[in-house]
């Protein structure tokens, strides 16, 4: 319920699902943010035939998981940990996107307030 109301009111600042952040990445931070790094190499992903939609920042876990599947077929229960790692990474990625959304919303609300005052 809360998350629905959160995204519903975001339309007041013209922010919708799957929009891209528009502010500088350092706005509102007192420290320097750490950059996300891509661990898997593009050639490896192509070689493993990972589809482009899955070549995100968690692709190295997916690569491990697929290697495990390949080695242990058909005993796939042996890859439970690899799968868990991969899904955990995807979940954290989603949480990051939610954080970016909320940051974008708050920055837009703040900007609107400042413009209104001025």
């Amino acid at each position, binding site marked *: 319920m809360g998350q629905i109301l959160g995204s519903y009111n975001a339309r007041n600042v013209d922010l919708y699902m799957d929009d891209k952040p528009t502010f500088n990445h350092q706005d509102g931070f007192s420290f320097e943010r750490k950059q*996300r790094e891509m661990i898997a190499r593009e050639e490896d992903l192509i070689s493993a035939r990972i589809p482009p939609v899955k070549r995100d920042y968690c692709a190295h876990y997916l690569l491990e998981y697929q290697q495990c599947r390949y080695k242990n077929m058909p005993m796939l229960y042996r890859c439970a940990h690899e799968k868990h790692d991969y899904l955990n990474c995807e979940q954290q990625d989603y949480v990051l996107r939610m954080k970016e959304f909320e940051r974008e919303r708050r920055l837009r609300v703040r900007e609107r307030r400042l413009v209104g005052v001025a």
Partner: protein
Amino acid sequence: MASALIRKALISNPNGFRKAIGLFYNANRNHWNYQYKPGPYPRTPEERAAAAKKYGLTIEEYQPYPEDMCYGDYPRLPDIGTDSKDPYYPYDYPDLKRNFNEPIHARQEIFGEDRYDISMRPRFPLWYQWMWFLGVVGGSFALYLFLEDYKFGRPVTAKQYPQEGPHYLFCAK
């Protein structure tokens, strides 16, 4: 022909003499399709009376089809589907809901209980059915159009892919 049929019936089922009697009876009465044909269209009152008598109707009941429909003197009977007939009446043929010598409607093959009931009285009138159909479909569509401006998604930004520029975590370097 008739003797061949009787012989065949007797040889294929020697005990079925009862059936052979039926076959024998029908064959002797010479009931062939051309004999079921209606007579020519009645023009004079005498012809009409004769046709009414032939079909077992009174003169007041008898009414032929228009001549250009080519039904000859066959009577135009009221359009009553078998399904609409009283199921509790003791008919001579309960399966057909028909009495002996009762004239058959010209389109009886479509009015059977398993086909179409032309005289069906619908439980709900047609305007009522349309009202509910258009009310439900139109109401749903109106709701859909109204809610078009109130859509919302999940509170996430676009998925981050490494080739789309640098992305940052929420922790310090």
